[in-house]
């Protein structure tokens, strides 16, 4: 009788443990995405400052940034979908990189206290966003492994756990001048 009880107990326990581990991994992914999201918003909110600081210098890049900010003008951050946020973030990274490259040509602007402070803050955020993306991708790898590997894939299939996409770092972002390259230092 006892062996039978033990076998039934184990048969019940194993799927529960596997299901819980999948949930834990999925929550980890969500948790890290939430932090990444907060960082993206923080950087987005800095754009009006940057636009004001480089007024009269980097007109073309400034216009790009203004267009990006206009795109979200009538919506709160939560109303924007995750995909759109990522897209906007890529555009911001590119435009900020462009601004920084132009500023290199104006030593008086580059040396100004306002600009230096802003540059430091942007560098800091870029470094934090890059860390958050890497953490997100690591947690997605962990989660996807569990979704695809035997035996957790059986539970994942039954409970409809889907593979998650990585946070792609666009190639042109990796090459972006000034901010991205210096933030990697």
């Amino acid at each position: 009788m006892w062996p039978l009880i033990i076998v039934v107990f184990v048969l019940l326990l194993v799927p529960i443990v596997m299901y819980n581990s999948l949930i834990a991994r999925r929550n980890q992914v969500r948790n890290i995405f939430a932090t990444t999201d907060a960082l993206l918003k923080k950087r987005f909110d800095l754009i009006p400052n940057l636009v004001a600081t480089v007024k009269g210098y980097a007109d073309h890049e400034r216009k790009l940034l203004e267009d990006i900010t206009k795109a979200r003008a009538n919506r709160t951050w939560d109303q924007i979908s995750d995909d759109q946020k990522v897209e906007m973030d890529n555009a911001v990274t590119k435009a900020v990189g462009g601004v920084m490259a132009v500023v290199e040509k104006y030593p008086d602007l580059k040396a100004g206290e306002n600009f230096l402070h802003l540059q430091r803050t942007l560098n800091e955020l870029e470094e934090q966003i890059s860390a958050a993306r890497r953490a997100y991708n690591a947690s997605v790898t962990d989660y996807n492994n569990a979704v695809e590997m035997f035996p957790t894939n059986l539970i994942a299939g039954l409970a409809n756990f889907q593979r998650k996409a990585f946070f792609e770092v666009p190639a042109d972002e990796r090459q972006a001048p000034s901010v991205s390259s210096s933030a990697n230092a």
Partner: protein
Amino acid sequence: MKTIEELRQFYDAVLLEDLQILEDKRRRVVNSFIITAAIVLAAGIAGFAITTGMGGPAPVAFVLPVVGLITGGIVFGVRRRDYAGDFKARIISQLVYFVDRNLTYNARACISQPEYMASKIFRQRPDRYKGDDYVSGRIGATQIEFSEVHSEYKTTSTDSKGRTQTHWHTIFKGLFFIADFNKHFTCEVFVLPDTAEKLFGRLGQKLQSLNVFRGQLVKLEDPEFERLFAVYGNDQIQARYILSTSLMDRITNFKKKSGRPVHLSFVGSKVYVAISYGKDLFEPRIFSTLLDFRPIQEYFEDLQLAVGIVEGLSLNTRIWSKS
């Protein structure tokens, strides 16, 4: 960073004169050792002769060599300490100044035990803690300090006759380095030599993740770095904020350059680096001549290794919000 060629010039121009004075002192230390050995030997022979002459063991036969050993030992010990102190004051302090003018050297001080414990690299509280050769100063924008540290814990065992014996075990022996880190952070991150993964592969990674005292295992993307180190932290994002891809690369290079076990921790806005050594650092040679460039080069390289951490880990890069 100074080169070996510059060191050689410095050696010829500055150090050599002091080394010649110290070489005389060293000879006197060696002489006192030889004299002690000779006295003990002579006393031993005399004791043996007395024992044979009296036809049985006589107390004086044991007393003579013991008295000789104690007296000689004291003389040798005092001279040796005096010589080592003089060597450090003349040679090591000048070498430190040569490596970087902003550094100061104190032969008798060391990284304090509370600071050592604050690093949380070694969790075991030491029962005996000592160190010397303390160097501190500012390299560019980065405040640094390092010294030799030796921490030990003790165990006692009782044998069948009820005698208790104390055994001392080393927790850490080597160079302990502290610097102000160039980014703000609030989490704790530990970069430890990876033994489990090296031995057991994927299963090892599983074992690492069970190390609950250190926080979560942080799996990083750099395969070479991952092979050498296991990283733990209490915040997955901040751990990666600290360990940027380029810093991982720099730590890997530093570990290879040192050729020794290296532990790092990032706690309270500081970076702590513990480099294990089997030998005592910055100690003068006694039984071989001082007028040799090689040991000087060795002291210089040990100093450069520590000071070079600032450049090696790019701690002077202050492009983030921390100035």
